[in-house]
């Protein structure tokens, strides 16, 4: 999956990919104060033996936990399941429904996306990416967007959560790269000096079919140097 980190104070964005094996669960957000945690399980291509240039991986299962609300939400491209107090409610992506409960609001927009608001100040959007059912390689997958995180504590971490706090970076020495349209540059971030490449990724919040291009500085090698530690540090044993 690809990650896009918008940095408003720098009027720009950073991107990186994380490539891990299908079945691996990555911690995306963890707030030790509120307990809110978001993890994502990776899925691969339908036919792992198919000869594609590079194996793609996506998020196939997302789990959101809020222990204070005794809430768990599991989202797959097939269904959406809410557990509250150990009791289960499930929906499909064919539903258009709003679920409200003690400060929680979940809105499923049929075959498009779902918006999860926990209290005031934490809102995630999960986008359903549907591919042609008979596509030989690709399968349906999910995207996660944090649209509001201001109620999460400063201790929030995770592959996405660590970027909820203001951070600084500097890009200089922009120079031609191997692709003339994608120049390379040097970036200083978190005391690391990295080689980055100018490119673009897509934001699918508004248009889950085509997406909107977001230009960004791409950090190679699974976000090495940009993320705290290495990407394998974010592997967790289970979704919840």
């Amino acid at each position, binding site marked *: 999956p690809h990650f896009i980190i918008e940095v408003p104070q720098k009027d720009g964005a950073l991107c990186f990919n994380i490539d891990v094996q299908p079945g691996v669960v990555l911690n995306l957000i963890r707030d030790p104060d509120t307990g809110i945690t978001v993890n994502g399980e990776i899925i691969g291509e339908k036919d792992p033996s198919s000869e594609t240039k590079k194996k793609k991986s996506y998020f196939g299962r997302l789990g959101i936990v809020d222990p204070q609300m005794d809430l768990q939400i599991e989202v797959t491209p097939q269904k959406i399941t809410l557990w509250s107090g150990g009791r289960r409610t499930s929906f499909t992506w064919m539903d258009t429904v*709003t679920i409200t409960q003690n400060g929680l609001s979940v809105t499923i927009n049929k075959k498009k996306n779902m918006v999860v608001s926990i209290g005031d100040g934490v809102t995630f959007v999960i986008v359903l990416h549907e591919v042609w059912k008979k596509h030989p390689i690709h399968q349906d997958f999910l995207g996660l967007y944090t649209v509001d995180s201001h109620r999460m504590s400063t201790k929030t971490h995770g592959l996405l959560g660590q970027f909820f706090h203001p951070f600084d970076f500097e890009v200089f020495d922009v120079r031609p790269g191997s692709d003339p349209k994608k120049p390379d540059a040097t970036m200083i971030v978190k005391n690391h000096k990295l080689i980055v490449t100018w490119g673009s990724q897509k934001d699918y919040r508004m248009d889950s079919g085509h997406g909107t291009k977001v230009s960004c500085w791409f950090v190679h090698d699974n976000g090495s140097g940009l993320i705290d530690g290495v990407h394998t540090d974010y592997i967790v044993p289970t979704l919840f």
Partner: protein
Amino acid sequence: SLPDTVVNGIEIYSTKINCKVTSRFAHNVVTTRAVNHADTAKEVFFDVELPKTAFITNFTITIDGVTYPGNVKEKEVAKKQYDKAVSQGKTAGLVKASGRKLEKFTVSVNVAAGSKVTFELTYEELLKRQKGKYEMYIKVQPKQLVNHFEIVADIYEPQGIKELDADVSFITNDLMDVLTTSFSGKKGQVSFKPTFDQQRSCPTCSTSLLNGDFIIRYDVNREQPGNVQIVNGYFVHFFAPQNLPVVPKNVVFVIDVSGSMSGQKMAQTKEALLHILNDVREDDFLNFILFSSDVSTWKENMVPATPENLRMAREFVRNFRVTGATNINDALLKGIEMINKARETGIVPERSTSIIIMLTDGEANTGESRVDKIQENVRNAIGGKFPLYNLGFGHDVNYNFLEKMALENHGLARRIYEDSDANLQMQGFYDEVANPLLTDVDLQYPQNTISDITQNNYQHFYDGSEIVVAGRVVDFETNSFVADVKGHGALNDLTFTEEVDLKEMEEALKEQEYIFGDYIERLWAYLTIEQLLEKRKNAQGEEKEKLTAQALDLSLKYHFVTPLTSMVVTKPEDNEDSEFIADKPGEEVKADQISHAYATQLNYQPPSNPYYFVDGD
């Protein structure tokens, strides 16, 4: 010798039952063709048992190629014709209640020697979803072997058919081959066409083994919680969400233990209660109130359905005894007070729903025995907060009273027939209401887009059921139609939204030319009449007159034989008109006659021995 097909000079050439179901709305046509091979005129009978929930929409008799069609008239107008015919010594035939679910339509006509007669009865009904299935019931009972017998049901469901089965009580291995059930996508078909020999009850018998129940059950795919269809300016919205957790319930069973309940009734009641206690969920609360001349409770307050409480409840049920008279008023008020108190003091969870289920076999005859006063007391005490369900056991019960009281408290009444399976009837009822998935369900539509909608708010949505709302679309400029359904679930509040693109829907339905195009309009009319008649049961004065006028107007417009209308078939005979009348009596009849839902009266002038059918249960 005459072939087996000819009995007493009459040959039944064919009997065909043709059912077309489109979006749960069933249009059934029963046709029988007969020939009189005798040298003299003969009386030919046509008997059909149809569901009590169905409305006859047409009946015609064709004799020697001349068809006498039916006309729906206001009941009073038809009755005058009927009375006149009877006073002239003409014959009358009636439709009587037949068992629990059916009404028997019986007509007969005198057919001249060598003449042919065709009877065609059409009736329509909205199939209701219960325990996850729609059920269409056909009673099969030809009087003699029939040359061509067939039942064909074509089902079209825009949501797609998930499962389809036919359950035939008289099926044999030989008949298995001629019963076919198939479905694919939106279409399904059940066909049953036994040959002449396959109909024989034994290889040398001239009697038919086709005698019993033919039940078609199916369900549709539910990828979405709801489905909206719009055709020719009318819409229907089916709503049945899946996979929601059950809302915990607080149930008070109010049980009649008066002397009349002794013996088998009480044994069956106990058996049913013991079975129900096995199904009570752990997060439910319950209590029992017993009433005869006095009222007693099992526990002072509602108690949770813990294993220990359930054990004690079973012991209590096994041990209570019958005695005394029937004090319905105090028993119900005690139950209502108990639920209200449990709610106010927080004994029961906030997200839970309350119901009272009363079982009685008689009339209130001690304490407050005026039914109007009991109704008023109960209505005021409940205050619309939760439903009351009344189960009327046996023949002597004042069912009208129980039904009125249940309806005005957002519940319903059911008869428990005094039979060997009365315990199963009680359990079956409990199963229907045991699993509420939503409470306070409100179905909303854009106000300036629609009119004349049927009931659009319900206290409960039960698992395995379906809410149906229909109405007219008045704004044709709009391209999309949005329906919102709001309800309280076990854990959260939910708002389901259905959006339909009108143009897309129009195009999709154009492809389905074979379905009868006005089915949504007729479904709307059926549902509206049904609900107006139900409301009318509790209305008084001007309100009742208004509801009656509305229901009558729609019954006449849509050719439905309802309790307010009759169908008259006029057949010129011997230079004198003869009337055949089909009608459905209203609720004014006495309690023990209420199940005479249809009375079809057929008058004709036989050559000799005029006779009268008697309407009886």
